[in-house]
């Protein structure tokens, strides 16, 4: 049963991923990206990381992508225009991509073929929460500081003096 779920949502994630890359209009790729995120959230659930699944949906799909969609709307982005610039990047890109895929694939396949993922007990809000506020307290504080700075940054960047 788990395999069935995995295959469905993995296929869904890959399909959405492809669309994110292939669609020309940013709004379309944004929505497909949300699709990827939600399918990943389901996979997280499958892996037992319930808290993260919910967090994924709330943070990624619910907040970040909303920002993306809003910016796309504000900017009223038009579909991409094909420009002939930098053929070299294009030419170099494909082999690099192939190399990347091969390398990651090799690593993935060699990782531990027999290793079986048991839906771990850990992953509820309690486990993650306790870990977060004991062993990882310092990183947690630093990250919160980081987010604060990000907020300030965003405000400062987009602030238009009204003089």
């Amino acid at each position, binding site marked *: 049963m788990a395999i069935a779920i995995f295959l469905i949502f993995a296929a869904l994630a890959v399909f959405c991923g492809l669309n994110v890359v292939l669609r020309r209009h940013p709004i379309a790729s944004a929505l497909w990206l949300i699709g990827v995120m939600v399918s990943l959230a389901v996979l997280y659930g499958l892996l037992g*990381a319930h808290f993260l699944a919910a967090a994924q949906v709330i943070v990624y799909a619910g907040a970040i992508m909303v920002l993306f969609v809003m910016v796309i709307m504000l900017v009223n982005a038009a579909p991409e225009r094909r420009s002939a610039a930098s053929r070299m990047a294009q030419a170099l890109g494909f082999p690099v991509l192939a190399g990347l895929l091969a390398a990651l694939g090799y690593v993935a396949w060699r990782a531990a073929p027999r290793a079986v993922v048991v839906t771990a007990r850990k992953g509820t809000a309690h486990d993650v929460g306790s870990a977060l506020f004991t062993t990882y307290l310092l990183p947690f504080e630093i990250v919160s500081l980081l987010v604060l700075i990000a907020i300030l940054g965003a405000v400062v*960047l987009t602030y238009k003096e009204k003089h």
Partner: protein
Amino acid sequence: MDAVPLSWYLLLSAVLFALGAAGFMFRRNLITVFMSIELMLNAVNLTFIALASRLGQVDGQVFAFFVMVVAAAEAAVGLAIILVVFRNRGTLQVDELDSLKN
């Protein structure tokens, strides 16, 4: 509940990461490039969580959580920059933003 082998997860994240990299390299719109980066980050998150559950520890998930938060911060600042770029340059086509050209 027959479990799913770990390498399938890693393979899936590899594919997603590659897709993200492709978008990152080939797309011409700044926002799409930015989204491909988010896609790559998601792929990484998947690996984190897959390995975390394989090892039965929660540290992987905490890492994933931190990645998510940092991604949020990055998205905020990134989108602000994109807005400012659009306001100053009038376009988001990556090839037209070449004022650094020698």
